[in-house]
């Protein structure tokens, strides 16, 4: 059990704990903070597994963008003492869906066998760049297209309100 292994399991444990808090805590602010911790723990896990760039990108995009976006949402809509109410009209169906999803994820994860032995070297940053501009070029451009589509779609929702 090397240092890396201990850290990985630590990161995993923290991320699970943070996720549980994020989902169950009644105060929205605490929930969002826990979400931020969750994202950071995932980034740490990425780092230990050798994906340096992805780890840093996770901080840049998820903590810097998504968490901020959610906080904006909270700040713009929450009344004082932002409580969360968990209400659904179909608790049984929600439970079924959640169980099915969890089961599927676990089954997929358990069946995964890596094609080659797990590397113990870090993935060099340039490898990613080489892939993006080389073999995965179509994917790269497709991402650009998806980003464009996302902007149009997202702003279409915003457009209906004339800013007031």
């Amino acid at each position, binding site marked *: 059990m090397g240092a890396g292994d201990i850290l990985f399991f630590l990161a995993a444990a923290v991320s699970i704990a943070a996720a549980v808090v994020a989902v169950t805590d009644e105060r929205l602010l605490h929930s969002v903070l826990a979400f931020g911790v969750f994202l950071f723990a995932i980034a740490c896990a990425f780092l230990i597994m050798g994906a340096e760039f992805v780890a840093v990108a996770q901080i840049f995009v998820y903590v810097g963008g998504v968490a901020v976006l959610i906080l*904006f949402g909270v700040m713009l809509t929450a009344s004082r003492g932002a409580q969360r109410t968990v209400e659904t009209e179909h608790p049984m169906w929600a439970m079924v869906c959640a169980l099915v999803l969890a089961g599927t994820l676990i089954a997929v994860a358990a069946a995964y066998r890596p094609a080659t032995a797990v590397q113990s070297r870090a993935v060099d940053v340039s490898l990613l760049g080489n892939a993006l501009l080389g073999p995965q070029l179509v994917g790269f451009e497709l991402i650009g297209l998806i980003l464009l589509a996302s902007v149009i779609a997202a702003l279409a929702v915003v457009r209906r309100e004339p800013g007031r």
Partner: protein
Amino acid sequence: MMVTLATSVVWAVGLFVVAALSVMLGVYLERKVAGHMQARLGPMRTGPHGIAQTLADTVKLLFKEDLIPGKVDRLGFIVAPLLAFAPALMSLMVIPYARPFVPRDLNAGVLYFLAVPAIGVIAVMVAGLSSANNYSLLGGLRSAAQLISYEIPRSLSVLSVVMLAGSLSTVTILERQTHVWFAVLTPIGFALYIITTIAELNRTPFDLPEAEAELVGGYHTEYSGLRWAFFMMAEYAGFFAASAFGAAVFLGGGNGPLLPPIVWFVIKTYAIILFMMWVKWTVPRFRIDQVMTLSRKVLIPVALLNLAVTAVVMQYV
């Protein structure tokens, strides 16, 4: 593992001291520069030429009552200043001080340096949200909106250097500047970096979130004493970090004839710091709509154009 942890903590504490000292020096310089530019002397009483002024202020803040207003969200209120300061310290980890004497050379160092202030944005918002005060909320929103708007052009400006150097590692970027500074190869990129950094630091002309006439104290209205001081420390430590990073990445860090690298590094860093102070005390403040449109309609297109130009230049370098 323990050795690495110990090494990192030693580095971190050492850099904390450096950061604290640079904050004290920064605040002192700010007041002196402001004074002289306004045809007055600035602090003169505490110590020779007022050198001990910031120290005195810090001691005073230590003795202030810790006031936590009744209706605040305690977790958020207490965590926010810590969340604001930690990224400033963390960003110091990848800066190559004096060829290349760097705490840790991350392969993705540049992106790390740009990503870590994102945590600071969260801190600002949490401070505004948990303060149970309309003005704090509004100030937090405005400040956060400004911060995220300028993160993109800032990242794009540094991207041009990454292209030229072919690496995301700060040490490699430093080493590639032995013949010519990257500021020379991509002057627009450098100018963009300075402008966007001034905005990211909430300094005039972009300091509307702190405009006293409008928003009292913005997101840190309800903070007093030491907790408020942490926000200040975060700002000035970030100031130092950003200037040091700019000196390393654009101005060639410790490279230079005759003088030892550390001296060159300090000279270049403080050249940037003093330039930003000069701007602060000369230029009037922008309106919030000017600030926001500047980043979207002017700086991002200019940054993208700069990238295109630099990409072409790069093929011939």
